[in-house]
């Protein structure tokens, strides 16, 4: 049976619902779906989980069990593949962001009461969230070149490198995590510290730095720009020509993805219902019908963009850094557009990237540029989940898109800081009265 995986679409209409699905189903790795027919056990499934923000998270799994249950109804039990850290981070940061946005709004009394009761559990949960944030951060740092790990420009001096190392050490040295219960936190901090330290060692002096620059294909450091995350000048960049692909339309180009986009088998599913039959949170999750799915897949621009930058990363993107510089595709235009991005002229920049992408669909840097700018717009609109996904997509299209890498690393660093702050406050609260 060569058919692709069964495609299922789940839409969360509220954040609360997402939270329920996440805590009850995703985190334990399985999910019950009501279904009129029961596909073979072992059939692969791909679930597109649409969040209230209209962004889509892909989950993979297979049919594990046929369920015939008076209470739950007829359906299937899905075994989900472990969620990638990235996905966990996306969901958690979406939920966290949502909580902060709604901070002022009164929450329902039962939830508040539960929180008061939790106390110790609250700290433990905050630790778990900090762990997830650190995991995501470690993962994003692993993809960066040493300059980016230290959030430095390529022109960095000895002093800049040591300064960045010092600041990061103060934040990530395992001693900074000594007060928390979880030893996993210290392990992760050590992991990140080791990445930082290795980057520092690679950049410690000018000879070493020029070697790294040579490996990255950067000839001369540009004029000095302020080191950290938001540079004002154009960043040197490497443009990677797409691997040997037949010139197709952007939307269809990734051959691996074609399978996944075959129309789903006409199996009809009902919304998953709450096994206990208690409440409505899940019951209102909607499963799209095939026709809906097609509609969604082709309608909003960003969905199409996303498909061209598959979440499952192509091999090219897994490399920490490209082995050698590739011929430049975007040329001067690309540099000018990057400059527009740096100046914050996002509308002009995106128009430029779109034009470039239209002119040459193989221009990865242009397509990545579109995602990058969309991400920056989302960031400006405080939609961190969307922003993160956009930056991820940009990196998947063009792993050398530094701006996206920086933005992503920056967001994750920020997420870590917030989690750490939250945890400290919770611990302070707990310690306070004693």
């Amino acid at each position: 049976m060569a058919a692709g995986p069964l495609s299922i679409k789940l839409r969360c209409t509220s954040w609360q619902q997402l939270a329920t699905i996440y805590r009850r189903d995703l985190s334990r790795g399985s999910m019950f779906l009501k279904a009129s027919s029961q596909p073979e056990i072992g059939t692969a499934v791909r679930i597109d989980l649409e969040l209230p923000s209209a962004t889509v998270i892909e989950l993979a799994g297979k049919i594990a069990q046929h369920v015939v249950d008076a209470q739950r109804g007829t359906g299937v039990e899905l075994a989900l593949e472990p969620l990638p850290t990235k996905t966990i981070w996306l969901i958690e940061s979406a939920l966290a962001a949502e909580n902060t946005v709604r901070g002022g709004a009164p929450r329902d009394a039962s939830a508040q009461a539960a929180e008061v009761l939790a106390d110790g559990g609250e700290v433990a949960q905050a630790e778990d969230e900090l762990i997830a944030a650190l995991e995501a951060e470690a993962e994003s740092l692993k993809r960066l070149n040493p300059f980016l790990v230290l959030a430095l420009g390529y022109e960095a001096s000895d002093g800049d490198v040591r300064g960045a190392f010092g600041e990061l050490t103060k934040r990530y040295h395992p001693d900074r995590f000594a007060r928390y219960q979880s030893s996993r936190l210290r392990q992760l901090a050590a992991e990140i510290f080791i990445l930082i330290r290795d980057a520092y060692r690679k950049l410690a002096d000018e000879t070493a730095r020029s070697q790294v620059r040579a490996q990255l294909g950067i000839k001369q450091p540009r004029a000095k720009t302020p080191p950290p995350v938001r540079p004002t000048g154009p960043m040197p960049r490497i443009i990677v020509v797409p691997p040997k692909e037949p010139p197709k339309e952007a939307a269809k180009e990734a051959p691996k993805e074609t399978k996944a986009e075959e129309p789903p088998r006409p199996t009809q599913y009902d919304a998953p219902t709450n096994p206990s039959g208690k409440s409505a949170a899940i019951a209102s999750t909607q499963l799209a019908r095939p026709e809906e799915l097609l509609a969604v897949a082709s309608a909003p621009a960003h969905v199409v963009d996303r498909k061209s930058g598959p979440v499952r990363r192509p091999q090219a993107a897994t490399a920490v850094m490209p082995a050698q510089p590739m011929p430049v595709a975007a040329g001067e235009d690309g540099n000018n557009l990057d400059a527009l991005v740096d100046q914050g002229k996002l509308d002009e920049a995106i128009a430029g990237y779109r034009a470039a992408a239209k002119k040459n669909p193989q221009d990865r840097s242009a397509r990545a540029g579109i995602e990058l700018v969309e991400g920056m717009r989302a960031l400006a609109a405080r939609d961190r989940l969307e922003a993160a996904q956009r930056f991820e997509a940009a990196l998947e299209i063009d792993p050398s898109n530094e701006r996206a890498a920086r933005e992503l690393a920056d967001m994750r660093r920020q997420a870590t800081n917030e989690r750490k702050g939250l945890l400290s406050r919770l611990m302070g609260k707990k310690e306070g009265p004693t």
Partner: protein
Amino acid sequence: MTRIIGIDLGTTTSCVAVLDDKQVPRTLVASDGERTTPSWVSWSPAGEIAVGTRARRQAVTNPSATIYGAKRLIGRKVNAEDVAWFAKLAPFRIVAAPNGDAWVRVHGQPVSPQEVAAHVLRRMRQVAEEALGEPVTRAVVTVPAYFDDAQRQATRDAGQIAGLDVIRILNEPTAAALAYGAHRGADGRRIIAVFDLGGGTFDISIMSVEHGIFEVLATGGDTALGGDDWDRRLQERVVDEVFDKYRVDITGIPIAMSRLREVCETAKKALSSTAETQLALPFLANDQHGAPINYERTLTRLEAEQLTKELLERLEAPCLRALADAGIRAGDVEDVLLVGGMTRWPAVQATVERIFGRKPSKGANPDEVVALGAAAYAGILSGEADDAALLDVTPHDLGIKVGDSGFSVMIPRNSMLPVRARKLFATTSTDQKFVSIDVYQGESTELGKNRKLGQVVLEDLPPGPAGSVRVELIMTVDVESILGVTARELKTGKEASLTIRPSGGLSQREIVEIINRRRQEHSVTSRLPPGMVGNIVRVPTREQAAVLPDDDEK
């Protein structure tokens, strides 16, 4: 969560401090008003134990059971050069434990220096608990920068015996630099020197500091030079004068020597701030005719400096050597920090200025800065302060045996902790069944000269021609110097691993035995009136007079 205290466990005196509510490190003062506690422990024949000043006062009458300088012995082998030197000098017996470690003999019983240090630490803990009014279970303890793994672990073990969880061992010069606030101030890398002339030892450390990151570049010093030597020079002078005038050798009269020692120490301290002081020893002894000797004279600073000139001269060479080891010139040092009571002496400060070509920085209290720095770092660990992180380094090369006698370094010494290294290995014969990886530490390219730490054996390798099976070896050292070694076969993912903690000489079982013994004895003593639970507690004589409680079990 309880507060974490900082303890400077010194060769001659110890001090305890804590970060107060305003995030300022503060010395904790004992109920008797003492800001520092002599690191002395004594056992009376009846089994009474005393710590601190009371122990030190007994030294003259009970010299063989009054132990000081346990720090010189902790984690050391009895045949080490400076241990042998100390053994000749000390009035108590230093003996070899079965594993060759240096222990002391008290009333015929061998006692480990860890236990002696534990008594001092327990006393410091008690001082802290009384001052804070709350139980204390966690501490940062300082050690000299040159302490090796064994000495550091032995210090940790002493903490465990004293009921303290030693959450970090900190280098003394680093602690001092923290207390001086050397990590604040201007950006950029600065070189500082920490000049520590304490009661028993002289340590010089050259460090770099940048953005709150401290790095010890070189250490040096003289473990046989300290403030006590200055006292001794003054004592010798008085002994000579008494002999010249009265033809009486008072070195044979313990009480006279005890008084003389205290008077000379007081005079030495006084000369830090005054130009002259009185040495007054009425009724010091009797002369040949039985008449009392009333010794009294004025001692000027100038004369005292003349008497100890040779000691001052011994300060220079170690400093120059440390500078050379660090690869810098004296002029590169931007700040010299003074630690230790002897640095109050103007002549010592002048010597420092001459060596480094700049005026040294004087802290408020050189006896306390190390403890204050330890308290500051305790604050960082408990999350209360966040302006510094300290980087420790691996003291030795870590590697594995290759071939018959080769040593392949995986983690070079001076690597910042935590650290991880990874290497790939291939099998050397067809259908090899297992690989065995021997882990060594040391600096020699000859395997035999390095110390074997352990062995990892990975069995059931998949069959295949030589070189076809790959084994990945990952070596990590965490911030507490705990070494982890994992070997993994890449095809099957099969793993074998090993965790090596440094050993301080006592096994965990021995430590637990000591703690249990103490607990048993304590069950007898806990019925004593509360007033007795102070420095001295009487316990029934047992076959082991060594371990005696001096506070409540917490």
